[in-house]
Structure formats: C-alpha cells, structure tokens
C-alpha cells in the first residue's frame, strides 16, 4: 500500500491562500487507510483551512470531496464538473493521483496536500513501515524475504556494513539493520550459506534509475499496437 503523510498545515495554507475556491480532494484508497488523505481527512482539512482563512480575514470557499481512487480516470468522471468549479484543487491523493488529475483537469492547478512516502505495511494500528522500494527486479527469494534495497539504508547486497550495531542500523537506533534481519532469517531457514555467495552487481535500470516505467499487459500491447497501426 502507498503510505502518505499530510503536509504541514502551514505549507498547505501557503499553497491555497491566494485562491478563492478551493477543493480539498481526498482519495479513499491507500492514503485513506493510512489516515492521511481520505474523505475524512479532506473534511477535517477543509474545516481547518476555512477557519484559518477566517482568522486571516480572507475569503476563501473551501469545499471537500473524495472519490474511490485517483489513479483511474473512470472514478473522476462523475465528479469532474463539480471539481472544475473550484479554482484550485488540493489533492490528498498520493503523487500518482496529483499527476493523474493534473493531466485531466484542464487549467486548474492541482497541489499536493500530502507527501507520498513509500510502499508500506501496517504492522500495528497507526504504524507504517517501508518494506519495498519497487525496484522492478525482486530478489527477496535470495534474502529470506527481507528486502535489502528498501530496508538497508545503503541498499547493500552482500551483507551488513560496518555500521551494523546489535541488529540496528548506524543511521538510527530506531531502524533495524536489514542485513541483520536477513541473516537471522536465513539462519532460521537453513540457507545462511547463501550469504557467502557474492551477489552480482544489480541492474538498477529496472527501477526508477532506468527512467519512468510503464507496464503494458501482453494482450493489451497487441491491441494498442493495432490501434496505432489503424491510426497511422
């Protein structure tokens, strides 16, 4: 799941303060589950912004709305006319949603109300942890199911660095050393000897470093190609 965190209120206020009609637009999927950008948060934020405007003595109409997901165009359709009545949209969707809405909304600015943080799990209520970096070339079968790319601060591939400290990472006592976890787990799985094999250099191009990515399902690729041929 995508984990987001609401931006500091001041930062948000600075974004909206020069507009007259603002829509705080929540997304009821990932960011709602992490209590950052769902319809509920949109309602709360809208209320806070209205009060701020009132305190500053400026007139801003702040409304709120939310839809199921901001990353698929069909969900926008029923509300788009309404959305376009505002002169600015403060999106509480993840960055995907902000991009996606910006491409579709026309000449209305879409600003991000949350910081999109990472792909995370929810080990306990209210706690979110980064476990995957979306690198495009999974090696979890080699590392006991614990990802060194997402969870090692240096994304090391061949065991813990010298900064490992009783199971914690040198960057913070609050961060587990991923490699410590990996080794413990490999030990339990009886595959610790794999650790002694040198892992080859990684192909980072499968991830963000290879430029923005796109996946097209095989059968869809064919359909798209046909469409294109027809078009040209």
């Amino acid at each position, binding site marked *: 799941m995508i984990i987001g965190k609401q931006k*500091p*209120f001041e930062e948000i206020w600075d974004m909206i303060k020069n507009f007259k009609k603002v829509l705080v637009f929540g997304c009821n999927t990932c960011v709602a589950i992490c209590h950052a950008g769902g319809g*509920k948060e949109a309602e709360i934020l809208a*209320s806070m912004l*209205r*009060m701020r405007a009132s305190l500053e003595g400026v007139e801003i109409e702040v409304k709120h709305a939310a839809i199921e997901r901001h990353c698929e165009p069909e969900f926008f359709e029923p509300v788009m006319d309404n959305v376009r009545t505002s002169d600015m949209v403060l999106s509480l969707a993840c960055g995907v949603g902000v991009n996606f809405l910006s491409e579709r909304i026309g000449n209305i600015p879409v600003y991000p109300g949350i910081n999109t943080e990472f792909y995370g799990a929810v080990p306990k209520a209210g706690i979110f942890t980064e476990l995957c970096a979306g690198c495009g070339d999974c090696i979890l079968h080699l590392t006991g199911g614990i990802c060194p790319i997402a969870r090692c601060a240096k994304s090391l591939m061949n065991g813990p660095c010298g900064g490992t400290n009783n199971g914690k990472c040198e960057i913070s006592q609050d961060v587990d050393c991923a490699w410590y976890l990996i080794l413990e787990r490999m030990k339990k799985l009886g595959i610790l000897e794999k650790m002694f094999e040198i892992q080859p250099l990684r192909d980072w191009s499968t991830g963000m470093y290879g430029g923005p990515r796109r996946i097209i399902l095989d059968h869809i690729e064919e359909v798209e190609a046909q469409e294109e041929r027809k078009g040209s």
Partner: protein
Amino acid sequence: MVKAEEKVLSVEEPREISSGWEPNILAFACHYCAFAAADLAGVMRLSYPPTVKVIRLPCTGKLDYIHILHAFERGVDGAFVAG
C-alpha cells in the same frame, strides 16, 4: 526554509477580550465518567459559567475530529473533551 512544524503553533494571535465576554464552551463527555462528573458537580452545587454545555458521548473514543472542528467553525470558543 523554515520548517513548517516550527510555525504551526502560531495559529492565532491573542486578541483583545471585551469586558463581559464569556467563552462559549462545548464539552464532549464520556457517558461513564465525565458526564457523571458533570452530574456530580451539579449534585454538589459547584458552579461554573452557564455558557458551558455538555454533549454526551458513549465514550470519548467516539469523538471525531470533525465534531470539534465543526463546533469551532460554528463559533464556539472552546471545546472540552473529557473522558
């Protein structure tokens, strides 16, 4: 850039209060404890400003942010959550 956290607390400048003004306060009280305490205050004839009004909740865990924000937007001066 100034970190936003540092600024966030400076929400409202204190304003001048005219004499005779009394804050309009809404209390959100848990049925089991704070609401009972409000009752006890009455039983003991303890006095407090009549502008305080109590809304009973089954538990303060029920309270939603939006209840408080809504109250503030509608012009209450203070919200008192007790449970």
